[in-house]
C-alpha cells in the first residue's frame, strides 16, 4: 500500500497555487491521473520519485520514503519512471539500457520478449521508432522490479495505432508484474483500457476519484463514425486533431449522451 500526503506551492501560469492532496493506493492498482495542464500531475509523479522537493509524507508498504525527518534520495526509492520523451541512454544498445539498471539477463530477455523487442536488442536508440523507444523505456522501468511504476503521458507522442498496441502491452505487463502504477493520461481509451481507478486533479486538488467505468467521462470531441464490431461497437472520435477509437458495448453506446 502506498500512502501519500503532499503540500507544495506550484508556480503555474495563473500564479502560485498549492498542490495539496492526500492519497492511498492499494497494491496492484492502476491509477490514471488526469486534469488540465498545470494542475500538478507531473509534479505529483516527480515528488513521488524524489526528483522534486516538497513538503510530503510518502509511505510505501511499511517503509517511509519521505516525512519530516527522512527523505530517501531518488536512487533508493523503488520506482520505475517512464516519460513522454523516452529518455533512453543513447550510448547504449537496447539490451544495455536494460542491463544498466540491473544485471539480470533473464529478466531483460523476458521483458524484451514480452515487448517484441528481442530482434532489436543490439540496436542503438537512435535507430528505433518512437513506439519502439517507448517500449524499451517501459521495459527499462520494470528492470528494477519497482514497487511503484510512474508513467507520465507515456503514449502521447505516438500515433493512434501504436498507442493502441502499447496500451495492450502495458496491460499485459501490468497483469504479469502486478506493479502498482500511476499513469498521467488524457486519453479516454487509455483510461478505459487500463485504469482500475481514475483521479482528476484541478489546480492542485483532487476533484474526483472513482472507478473508470462507473459513469463514464465527459469529453469534448467530435464523433466521426460508429462501427459495429461483432456484438460490440467501436466509436471513432476526433479530439484535438487526433482520431481516437473507443470500443463500447451496446448498453454503453445507448448510454452515451451527446
Amino acid at each position, binding site marked *: 500500500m502506498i500512502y501519500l500526503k503532499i503540500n507544495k506551492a506550484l508556480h503555474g501560469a495563473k500564479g502560485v497555487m498549492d498542490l495539496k492532496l492526500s492519497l492511498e493506493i492499494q497494491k496492484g492498482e492502476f491509477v490514471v491521473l488526469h486534469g488540465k495542464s498545470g494542475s500538478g500531475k507531473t509534479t505529483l509523479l516527480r515528488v513521488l*520519485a524524489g526528483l522534486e522537493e516538497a513538503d510530503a509524507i510518502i509511505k510505501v508498504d511499511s517503509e517511509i520514503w519521505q516525512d519530516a525527518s527522512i527523505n530517501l534520495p531518488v*536512487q*533508493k526509492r523503488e520506482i520505475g*519512471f517512464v516519460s513522454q520523451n523516452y529518455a533512453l*541512454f543513447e550510448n547504449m544498445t537496447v539490451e544495455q539500457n536494460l542491463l*544498466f539498471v540491473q544485471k539480470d539477463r533473464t529478466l531483460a530477455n523476458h521483458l524484451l520478449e514480452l515487448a517484441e523487442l528481442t530482434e532489436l536488442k543490439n540496436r542503438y536508440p*537512435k535507430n528505433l521508432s518512437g513506439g519502439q523507444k517507448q517500449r524499451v523505456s517501459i521495459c527499462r522501468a520494470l528492470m*528494477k522490479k519497482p514497487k511503484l511504476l510512474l508513467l507520465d503521458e507515456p503514449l502521447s507522442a505516438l500515433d493512434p495505432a501504436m498507442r493502441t498496441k502499447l496500451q495492450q502491452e502495458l496491460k499485459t505487463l501490468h497483469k504479469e508484474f502486478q506493479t502498482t502504477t500511476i499513469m498521467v493520461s488524457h486519453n479516454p481509451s487509455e483510461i478505459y483500457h487500463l485504469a482500475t481507478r481514475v483521479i482528476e486533479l484541478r489546480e492542485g486538488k483532487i476533484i474526483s476519484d472513482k472507478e473508470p467505468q462507473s459513469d463514464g467521462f465527459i469529453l469534448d470531441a467530435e464523433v466521426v463514425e460508429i462501427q459495429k464490431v461483432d456484438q460490440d461497437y467501436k466509436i471513432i472520435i476526433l479530439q484535438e486533431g487526433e482520431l481516437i477509437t473507443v470500443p463500447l458495448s451496446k448498453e454503453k453506446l445507448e448510454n452515451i449522451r451527446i
Partner: protein
Amino acid sequence: MQRISLKSMDTALHFEPFVLSFELAAITASILFCVALPLAWYLSQTRSRKKPFIEAITALPIVLPPSVLGFYILWALSANSPVGAFFEDTFGIKLVFSFTGLVVASSLYSFPFMLQPLQNGFESLNKEMLEASYIAGKSKFQTVFQVALPNMKPALLTALIITFAHTVGEFGVVLMVGGSIPGETKVASVAIYEMVETMDYTSAHIYSAIMLGISFVVLLLVYLFNARQTRRFGL
C-alpha cells in the same frame, strides 16, 4: 651575419621546443580535465545565485591581456608572495622560470577552454536521461562517467583538444612566467619569437609551418570525429 645563419641552421634541427610545448600541453590538459570536470558538472546542474560569479571569474583568462594575467601569475608565484614562498620552503620548488611554474600558469590560462565546452556539453544533455540514471539507482559519479560523458563525446573531445592546442599556442603568459630557458621553459612559440627577433627567418618559417600543420591536422581530426559521432548517435 654568417654566424647568425650558422646558428640558425643549428637550432632548426632542434625539436626540443616542440617536445616541451606538447609535454606542457598534455600535462595541462590532464590536470585541467580533473579540475574542471567537477566544476563544469556543478555549474551545469546548479540553480545557485553564485553561478554567474563563478562563470565570470573562470572566463577571465579569455578576455584579460596575457600580459596582465602573466603579471599576476608572476607576482603570485614569486618567492615574495605567500604561494611562491610556501612552495619553495615546503617542497623546494621554484615556481617562476621553471617548467612547474609553466604548468601552473598554463592551467590558469587555459582553464576556461576546458571548463566551457564541458559545461556546455553537460547542459545540452537530456535532463530526463540523467534522471533515468538516478532512478536506475546510479550515483552522480556513475551517472557522469557512464551516461553523461559517453553521450557528449564531441564536447569532451573539443574540451581536451582545444585546451591542448590553446596551451601549445600560448605565448605571452609563458614568456612572462617562464622566460626562455632552453630545455626548461623555451617552448615552441617562444622559440619562434626569438628567431624572428634575431632575424632568423628560415628557422622561424620552418617552426611556424610545423605549428600550422600540426594545428590544422588536430582541428581537422576533431571536426571529422564530431561529424562521425553526429551520424552515428545523432548527438
